[in-house]
């Protein structure tokens, strides 16, 4: 055994482990940085191609299986024609989907003229993530920055948590680390939107710290308040982004306050196409507000 510890291979392993440990220490303190960016840039085109291929393959399989019995009765010439038509149909579905995306894009753009929107597709889902985090095919080259809100036409999905040149990682509102200001559109009561795993598994988030006499009721619509709360994320979202509807009001197990269970309009686990708000009116001020909140809270932060 002693001889084994003196072998070149063992010494090599120690050197490799030391290098990897240095990488772990570096990335855990300074973030993925250039190394992560480089590795992401290598892996991203592969994922993008595969993601689009599997998408098309699913459409093709669906269309072909519909007319399988008819196709069996057809001769070679007709089969060829059917295949050509199927190909056209696939392109048609793709165009319809794209058109739908642009319509939604236009709808949001008309409603909020100050939003700079960027369309993106989900290219990767992290199997290690408990909160449905995903990766999109737009990165810093397209103007995406950290903390940009990610939405669909229905409402808020999450925010950008890591950016590389060609792709970005999105943390969803189901994530337990999310904490931002929200308000009820009916009575303007405010609270903090957060989450926990048990609720996230049911696709629900929490609107916490409601006063005892709150008038929030089931069915009310919840939107972002735009205020920075503790973590600072609140200030990075524009005001009025729809989140979901109240499904129940419950007592907090930890104190005398109440919390509302909110069912989001968008299920982050199933979303395929999203939009990134790269800029909106007041973003710079909000970022300043958030950073000052972070600075003041970091001195007495509990986490």
């Amino acid at each position, binding site marked *: 055994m002693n001889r*084994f510890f003196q072998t070149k*291979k063992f010494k*090599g*392993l120690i050197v*490799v*482990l030391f290098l*990897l*440990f240095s*990488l*772990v220490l570096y*990335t*855990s303190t300074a973030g*993925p940085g250039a*190394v*992560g960016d480089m*590795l*992401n840039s290598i*892996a991203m085109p*592969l*994922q993008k191609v*595969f*993601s689009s291929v*599997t*998408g098309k393959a*699913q459409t093709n399989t669906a269309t072909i299986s519909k007319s399988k019995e008819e196709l069996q009765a057809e001769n070679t010439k007709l089969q060829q024609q059917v295949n050509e038509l199927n190909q056209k149909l696939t392109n048609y579905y793709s165009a319809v989907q794209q058109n739908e995306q642009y319509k939604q894009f236009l709808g949001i753009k008309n409603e909020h003229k100050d939003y700079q929107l960027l369309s993106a597709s*989900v*290219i*990767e*889902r*992290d*199997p*290690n*993530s*408990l909160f449905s*985090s*995903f*990766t999109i095919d737009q990165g810093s080259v397209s103007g995406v920055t950290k903390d940009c809100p990610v939405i669909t036409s229905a409402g808020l999905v999450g925010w950008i*948590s*890591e950016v590389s040149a060609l792709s970005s*990682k*999105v*943390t969803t509102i189901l994530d*337990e*680390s999310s904490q931002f200001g929200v308000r009820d559109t009916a009575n303007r009561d405010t609270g903090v939107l957060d989450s*926990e*795993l*048990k609720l996230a*598994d049911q696709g629900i988030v929490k609107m916490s710290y409601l006063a005892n006499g709150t008038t929030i009721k089931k069915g009310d619509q919840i939107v972002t308040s735009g205020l920075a709360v503790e973590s600072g994320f609140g200030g990075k979202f524009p005001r009025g982004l729809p989140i979901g509807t109240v499904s129940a009001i419950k007592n907090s197990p930890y104190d005398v306050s109440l919390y509302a269970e909110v069912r989001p309009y968008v299920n982050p*686990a199933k979303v*395929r196409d999203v939009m990134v708000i790269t800029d909106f009116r007041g973003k710079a001020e909000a970022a300043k507000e958030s950073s000052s909140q972070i600075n003041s809270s970091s001195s007495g932060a509990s*986490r």
Partner: protein
Amino acid sequence: MKHSKFFRYLAYTLEIILLFVLQEAPNVLPTIHYTRPLLLIPAAVTIAMFESQTASTVFGILCGLLIDIGMINGILGLHAMILALICFIVSYLARDLLQTNVITAFTICCIAMGITVLLQWLLNYVVLGYADPVYALVQHYIPYFLYTVILVFPIYALNRFFVLRIQPPL
């Protein structure tokens, strides 16, 4: 001799890339009880059972780095370090002490995946102070572990096929 080794390593590399893409692509592998499998751990461990320590460590690092870059808010290099160490030990043991068969592959994969899952649970959940860590372990991490180790059988078969088919001529 050298050619067969080169082609076998090429086959492993292509296998790893394919498994990485399958593992990360949305809507390809079905989600069972909130989880999807981590295919690269069985791949790295079963390759290590057939190859030299150096090659095993390199493939372990490759698989680990791919897992790390796929993770959101993960620590780059953590899985690479774990798999480098595990693959080196597995390769060393497989030379003299272990029988290279599917039962051994399954057992070693359970140990490797067990270590990985426990570390993930500790570092990505418990240390961050998230609520109800026992619920997370039982409802998420254990199903994730089981889903992954079940897939060791086809992955072992594939790597065994590479070893048997891509060999130097006698």
